[in-house]
């Protein structure tokens, strides 16, 4: 009951004209950038993040959440119309979405994707409403060793973001930790890794890093590929009764698979979409239709993708563990506004948390209302020549990196990481573990130092306290589960794309 009262308070705040406008604007801009060929949700959020920095924290985070939802939906548009998965979570959508588009049913595929996303996203937010406070309550008993255990648990996410090679994933995570150490040390304020160079004293800015790794590198990769959109006009986006009858059970199953697995901190959408797609094909009476434009092949993975993403908000807000690269950027965004997701967030900033949760409901509705009528517009956007898109994205990324701290140094950082990101992606070294470790690095260091100071330097403190030990054991179990799931997903990605892709 208390939850509902707090949620009602959240709705009262989220429905204020400013916040409502920000949710709509975020969803619109997120979709707008998300539909641009090859730009996945991570890059879209990174590019648009600077636009929120002029706002107060609540409308800014609401807009950021709208951007997240919009960008997630935008990714499915390029998968269906261009056969380009912005991220690996969109690969199964390509398998049947693109054939549907070639058969002139692209509008229906986009409509089903929007409906499935809305249903799964809303269910995820309902669960967030009731589960997250419970989880946060439990976590209130945490001390530094338990928080350190939590950071170790978060580290298991690296396994699911590592594509085929775990070694590559962990190596990239170590590079991310190293990058996060640049600047002033937290204990003595002594400069670290600055090499007596002033600009490095303030450390590497998150947005500069993300813009470089995910946006600038993407534009250069995009230059190498010829991307051609389906030329047919999108007519009807509202699926007929026959389509709905086939899609609704798939939406329900996809949502179930995506949501349950999404609660595990080590399970990214890239894993659950393939499980949902394969489950659908396995139980279908006509599995031969899959890969040739089966509507269930779009409905199930799209629902699973959104259910996992929404379920990912639970460990994100309650424990501070992001389950995917876009959520990691979102976590970084929250931290820029001085908010540390985790159990204390529910205690210290309840109005804020409940406003954000209410805005997730609103964001889902806005996305559906906005996207179904505007599908034709989004489809037209995918036809903008890359010769125009590329320069615009580069200039936007450049100025976005500058605008966060008004620093040309940050722009330089984004250019360097753009080049590094290009080669890392080219040679199939996953970027998401680097990003995750970069964001969690300062927290890991804080809790490690606090815990070891408490124990006089003995690492046994982590196994002597019940909760901390349980978290570390849970991390081991999750790591194993993630490895099994990742192996399965990597095999499936290889089968479908003949490539190794980061999840």
């Amino acid at each position, binding site marked *: 009951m208390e939850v509902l009262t707090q949620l009602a308070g959240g709705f009262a705040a989220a429905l204020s004209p400013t916040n409502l406008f920000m949710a709509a604007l975020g969803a619109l801009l997120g979709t707008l950038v998300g539909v641009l060929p090859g730009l996945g949700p991570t890059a879209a959020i990174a590019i648009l993040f600077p636009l929120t920095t002029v706002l107060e924290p609540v409308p800014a985070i609401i807009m950021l959440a709208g951007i997240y939802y919009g960008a997630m939906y935008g990714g499915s548009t390029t998968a269906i119309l261009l056969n380009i998965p912005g991220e690996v979570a969109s690969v199964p959508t390509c398998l049947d979405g693109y054939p549907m588009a070639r058969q002139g049913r692209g509008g229906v595929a986009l409509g089903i994707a929007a409906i499935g996303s809305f249903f799964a996203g809303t269910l995820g937010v309902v669960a967030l409403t009731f589960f997250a406070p419970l989880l946060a309550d439990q976590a209130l008993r945490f001390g530094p060793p338990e928080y350190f255990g939590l950071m170790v648990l978060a580290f298991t996410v690296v396994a699911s973001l590592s594509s085929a*090679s775990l070694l590559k994933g962990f190596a990239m995570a170590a590079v991310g930790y190293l990058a996060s150490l640049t600047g002033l040390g937290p204990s003595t304020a002594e400069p670290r890794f600055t090499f007596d160079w002033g600009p490095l004293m303030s450390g590497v800015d998150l947005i500069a890093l993300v813009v470089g790794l995910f946006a600038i590198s993407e534009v250069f990769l995009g230059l190498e590929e010829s991307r051609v959109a389906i030329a047919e006009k999108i007519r009807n986006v509202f699926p007929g009764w026959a389509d709905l009858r086939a899609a609704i059970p798939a939406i329900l199953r996809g949502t179930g698979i995506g949501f349950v697995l999404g609660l595990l901190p080590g399970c990214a959408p890239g894993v659950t979409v393939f499980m949902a797609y394969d489950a659908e094909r396995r139980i279908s009476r006509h599995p031969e239709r899959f890969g040739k434009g089966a509507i269930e092949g779009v409905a199930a993975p799209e629902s699973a993708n959104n259910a996992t993403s929404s379920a990912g908000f639970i460990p994100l807000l309650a424990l501070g563990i992001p389950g995917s690269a876009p959520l990691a950027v979102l976590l970084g965004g929250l931290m820029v506004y001085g908010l540390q997701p985790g159990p204390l967030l529910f205690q210290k900033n309840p109005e804020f948390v409940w406003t954000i949760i209410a805005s997730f409901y609103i964001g889902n509705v806005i996305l559906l209302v906005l996207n179904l009528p505007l599908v034709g517009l989004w489809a037209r956007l995918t036809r903008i020549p890359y010769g125009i898109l590329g320069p615009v994205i580069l200039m936007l990324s450049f100025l976005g990196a500058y605008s966060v701290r*008004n620093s040309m140094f940050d*722009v330089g950082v984004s250019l360097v990481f753009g080049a590094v990101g290009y080669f890392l992606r080219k040679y199939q070294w996953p970027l998401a573990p680097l990003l995750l470790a970069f964001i969690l690095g300062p927290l890991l260091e804080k809790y490690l130092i606090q815990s070891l100071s408490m124990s006089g330097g003995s690492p046994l403190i982590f196994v002597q306290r019940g909760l901390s030990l349980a978290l570390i054991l849970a991390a081991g179990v999750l790591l194993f589960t993630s490895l099994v799931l990742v192996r399965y997903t990597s095999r499936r990605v290889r089968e479908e794309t003949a490539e190794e892709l980061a999840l």
Partner: protein
Amino acid sequence: MTSAGAGRNQRWVMGGVLFALGLVAVIEGWRLYALRTQMVAGAVVGDDTLPLITGAALIIFGILVAVVAPPPPAKVTLPAGPVRAQMLLAGGLLVAYWLILPYVGYTGSTALISVGLYRAMGNYRWLVAGLLAAVTTALLFLMFRVWLHEPLPTGWLGF
């Protein structure tokens, strides 16, 4: 180059980079350790702890990647011909933008670099590239200066 040769190169380059980064981290951690023992008597951990751990991990990963358990090599086709020229030109223009923006100011440098980018990435004629650049400069100005109130660099020209 044969695929075996390419694989060897990949693992040595990446393993070497990881090893070098680890070495830098360990050296920096060691410097911080010495500093901590001087500055904070009795402290068992400090700013050096994670750099040392991360450095050691990177060195181990470097050795694993290069020698012990190299990951399967990626099949990579690097861009060639006109595409490579396009990419190098676009990259060079971005670096040039970074260098000239503080001196030439937002308007002049953005217009100039945009023309170059539209020419390099889209092969548009000068007139079309100029028009696109003007629109881009104006829209980005509206977004960052007018909406976001960002103090964009004005440079010698004052705008």
